[in-house]
C-alpha cells in the first residue's frame, strides 16, 4: 500500500532516478568500449525501471504472489533477448568485445 511510504522516500527515489539518467547520458557518449557501454546502459536502465516498479508502483509492499505474478513474466522477453544476442554472437553478426 502506498500509505507505508514516506514522502522522503519518494524524493530519494527521484534523486536516484535523476542521477542515473545523467550517468546514462554521460556513459552513452564515451567513445570506444562499445560493449561495456551497452552493458552499463542496460544495467542503469534496469536499475531505474526497478526503482519505479518497486517504490513508485509500490510493488515492494504487495503480497508475495502478486510480486511473483508481475515479475516472473518479464523473464520471458528477457530470455528471448538472451537467445537473440547469443544467436547474433554465434553467427558473428555482433562482436561481444570490440
Amino acid at each position, binding site marked *: 500500500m*502506498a500509505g507505508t511510504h514516506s514522502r522522503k522516500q*519518494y524524493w530519494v527515489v527521484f534523486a536516484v532516478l535523476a542521477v542515473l539518467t545523467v550517468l546514462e547520458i554521460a556513459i*552513452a557518449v564515451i567513445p570506444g568500449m562499445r560493449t561495456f557501454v551497452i552493458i552499463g546502459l*542496460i544495467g542503469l536502465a534496469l536499475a531505474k525501471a526497478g526503482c519505479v516498479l518497486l517504490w513508485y508502483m509500490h510493488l515492494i509492499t504487495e503480497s508475495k504472489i*502478486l510480486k511473483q505474478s508481475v515479475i516472473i513474466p518479464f523473464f520471458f522477453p528477457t530470455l528471448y533477448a538472451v537467445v*537473440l544476442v547469443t544467436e547474433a554472437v554465434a553467427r558473428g*553478426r555482433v562482436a561481444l568485445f570490440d
Partner: protein
Amino acid sequence: MSAHADHHHHGPITDWPLDPEMGKASPGKIAMWFFLLSDAMSFGGLLLGYAILRGRADQWVAPGEPLEFGINFTGGLTFLLICSSVTMVLAVANAQENNRKGALKFLLLTALGGVLFLCGQMQEYFGAFSFIFGHPGGLSGYGQDCAAAGAHCLTFGASPRATTFYVITGFHGLHVFSGTIYLLLTALATARGKYDNGNYSPIEICGLFWHFVDLVWILVFTFVYLIPLPEGG
C-alpha cells in the same frame, strides 16, 4: 479491518479486506497490473523486433538519415517524465491523507508533465516548437524537401531504423496521450469529491498506469536513443 466492502454499508471503502494471496490489493488494482503486464509484452515484442532488425542490419543508418536523435533534448523529456512520476506519487499520498486540494494539484501537475512530453515529441518529430528549440522540420524534416535541402531526415517507411523509431516512440506517445486523458478524468472526479474519505484506490490505479508509461520510456530511451552505433553506423 476498520471498514471494508460490506454490502450493508454505503460509506467509502477505506481498506480492502486482507486476502491470503493478494494481500490488500483491490480487484481494480489487480486488473490494472494484469493489463500492464499484457501491455509490457506489446512493448517487449516491439523492442525485440527492433533488436532483431538492428542486430541483422549491415548498415543500420541509411544514407541521408541523421546519425543521432538528439540525446540531450530527449534526456530532458526523460527528466520530465521522472518529475511527473514524483508528482503522481505525491497525488496518491495526498489522497490517502484525504487532502483533496493537494491530490488535485499534483494530479494536474502530472497531467501537465504529460502534455509537455507530447509537445516535446511533436518538436522532435516535426519541429513544432522550432521557434524555441530550433531544428525546424524536426527529425522527419516536416515541410522541407530533404533531398533538395541536403538535410538529414528520418522518413517513416524509408528504412527499418526510421520505421521502428516512429512505431516504438509513437506507441509510447499514444500511452502518454491516453495517460494524460486518464489523469485529467481522475482529476475531474477528484475535484468533485468522488475520492474523498479514504476512497483513494482509483487514484492509485491511475498512478500505476502513469508510472508504467515512465518505466517503459526508461527502456525505450536506452534501447532506441542511447545504445551507440558501431563504427560506420
